[in-house]
């Protein structure tokens, strides 16, 4: 029997993986071939999707991108024996783009069947939980502290400190909440974990539950991810059946169970307090802090809220030890970052690597430059609230502090590439527009300021009183930055001001004025 692997990740489905899988089934039947098709997550090399992998004695040999219409031809050319072909990339594990990564969180993604708990266990799954149970709650928190893991949702807050705070609250109903709202343009790593290795997230949340004495967890998933929703529901049910969730997790005496809840298309619900209100069944308005969710969180109870990637990093940290994880990275940015290459890029996909790699290496070398073949002009890092970077800053290393120093942010690790046809004034306008659409409405600088910002940008683009309006724009950005309750209003000035600062020529008269000011 020959085993072939085709991704069921929505990133593969969106370019036709389902039709390819069906064609293989049909061909196998009509030719009487003994073929088993395993549906996996994605390896993250999306420009090669639909990628079809064939098991051979040398390892899994990959072919991609494969069109359904070419399946017959590929089989004729001997792909089921791993034979050469123009679409063949060789043994996938040896393919440089893949091999050069440091895959910790994404070690299994694209390799295993995400719906099979046996497959998960055969690839090291649930080793972390086993060790966590043996070590006990205190030691779990210590291990996470040692790892230096920082929240991957955007703010980069040390995960271990958050966990310790919740662990130190008196015993009562506590909750684990996973932030799976992944609203930033240019990001898809959470989606890949949930569709490609959901048990890793479930295991991470279970370990968190045991660490702080929380018996229930929620994954708050954006409604734009119907495929992740299906996979998570199936995986949670499997974990429950196998005794990894329930009243007595792995016979440890600890109780922990969980469910997935859908958001409803509000970007601001990725902000943690807004998310908690939404889970409680209210409007997703941002809460003032303090109190911290660690003290008064979901339904008024102590709550850990972490991003998908933060929680998914935990099983490995418990299995291999906090020091193992900490030994990757630079400065105060420890471990690996799953970086997402997006936009107008040749090699779009997920690249997990230790912190410290430069922006230029990521965009030019790994990303291969633009898809359009035109020069890269700007990249936006960290989603809609992140700054635009010009080529001049491509030596910035991927590290929380280095990005802050360059007036930007890493956020959730998404990089969106733009070629030289981009109009940066239009991008600045969009940043204001997005803020206006998504504002929760609680504070004036964000709610009203973003609408004013759009009007201002329209005037600036139209050439109306440019000089004066640019001064007003900078003023407005200052007000939003310092007068907003959360980062939606507070960080929208980053894309706007970085666009203006680095690309003044797109704002007309701006260039002269900035030069005069210097």
């Amino acid at each position: 029997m020959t085993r072939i692997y085709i991704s069921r990740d929505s990133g593969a489905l969106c370019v036709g993986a389902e039709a390819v899988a069906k064609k293989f089934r049909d061909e196998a039947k009509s030719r009487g071939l003994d073929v088993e098709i395993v549906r996996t997550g994605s390896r993250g090399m999306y420009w090669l999707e639909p990628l079809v992998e064939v098991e051979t004695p040398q390892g899994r040999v990959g072919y991609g991108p494969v069109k359904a219409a070419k399946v017959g031809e590929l089989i004729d050319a001997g792909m089921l024996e791993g034979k050469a072909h123009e679409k063949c990339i060789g043994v996938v594990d040896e393919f440089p783009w893949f091999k050069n990564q440091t895959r910790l969180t994404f070690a299994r993604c694209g390799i295993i069947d995400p719906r099979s708990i046996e497959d998960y266990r055969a690839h090291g799954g649930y080793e972390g939980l086993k060790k966590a149970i043996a070590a006990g709650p205190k030691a779990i928190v210590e291990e996470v502290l040692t790892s230096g893991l920082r929240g991957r949702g955007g703010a980069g807050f040390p995960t271990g400190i958050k966990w310790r705070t919740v662990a130190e609250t008196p015993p009562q109903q506590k909750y684990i909440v996973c932030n799976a709202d992944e609203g930033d343009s240019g990001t898809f790593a959470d989606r890949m974990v949930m569709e490609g290795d959901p048990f890793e997230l479930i295991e991470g949340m279970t370990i968190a539950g045991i660490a702080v004495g929380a018996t229930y967890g929620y994954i708050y998933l954006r409604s734009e991810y119907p495929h992740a929703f299906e996979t998570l529901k199936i995986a949670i049910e499997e974990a429950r059946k196998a005794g990894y969730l329930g009243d007595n997790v792995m016979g440890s005496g600890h109780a922990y169970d969980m469910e997935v809840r859908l958001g409803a298309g509000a970007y601001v619900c990725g902000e943690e307090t807004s998310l908690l209100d939404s889970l409680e069944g209210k409007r997703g308005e941002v809460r003032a802090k303090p109190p911290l969710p660690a003290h008064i969180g979901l339904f008024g109870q102590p709550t850990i809220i972490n991003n998908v990637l933060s929680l998914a990093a935990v099983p490995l940290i418990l299995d291999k030890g906090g020091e193992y994880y900490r030994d990757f990275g630079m400065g105060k940015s420890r471990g690996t970052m799953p970086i997402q290459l997006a936009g107008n890029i040749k090699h779009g996909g997920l690249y997990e690597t230790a912190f410290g790699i430069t922006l230029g290496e990521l965009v030019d070398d790994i990303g291969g430059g633009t898809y359009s073949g035109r020069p890269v002009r700007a990249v936006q890092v960290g989603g809609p609230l992140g700054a635009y970077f010009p080529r001049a800053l491509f030596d910035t290393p991927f590290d929380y502090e280095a990005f802050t120093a360059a007036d930007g942010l890493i956020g959730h690790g998404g990089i969106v590439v733009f070629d030289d046809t981009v109009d940066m004034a239009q991008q600045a306008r969009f940043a204001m527009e997005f803020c206006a659409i998504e504002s929760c409405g609680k504070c004036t600088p964000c709610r009203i300021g973003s609408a004013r910002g759009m009007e201002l940008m329209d005037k600036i683009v139209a050439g109306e009183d440019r000089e004066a309006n640019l001064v007003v724009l900078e003023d407005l950005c200052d007000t939003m930055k310092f007068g907003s309750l959360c980062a939606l209003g507070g960080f929208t000035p980053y894309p706007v001001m970085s666009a203006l600062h680095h690309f003044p020529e797109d704002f007309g008269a701006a260039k002269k004025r900035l030069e005069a000011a210097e």
Partner: protein
Amino acid sequence: MSRFEPWTPERASEIIAQHQNQKGATLPILHALQEVFGCVPLDAEPIIAEALNISRAEVHGCVTFYHDFKREPGGRRTLKLCLAESCQASGGRALEKRAKEKLGVEMGGTTADRRVTLEPVYCLGLCHSSPAAMLDHDVYGALDEERLDELLKEAQS
């Protein structure tokens, strides 16, 4: 022709009853109602308020806060076109224009034959293959004019 059931308070109560006993039941109820009726009509609000023992104003505030919930059912199929940055960088704006022209609707509009509702979406998590779109629950990436035209045809069929 419609894929949705006609609104009746009895059917609504039945759906609400299936979901009301969980904690924070509002969003699950709203999603379930929209799944069946294609929208959350105003008339549903007092029934939800009563079932959850909260004020009608709270329910109303919630329904109107979230972009997902509609007041009237859309067309037979919903085409969500991504308008966020990664898709902008890859030609999404031109595709938006083309889709509006070909369907003869603005964003949020439904075609005269009620086959397709066109909606904006801000990122589908498919930014590695921008521009992207979603037709009901099916995803499409790496769109260009040709692929968009096929997708529009599929949406209207």
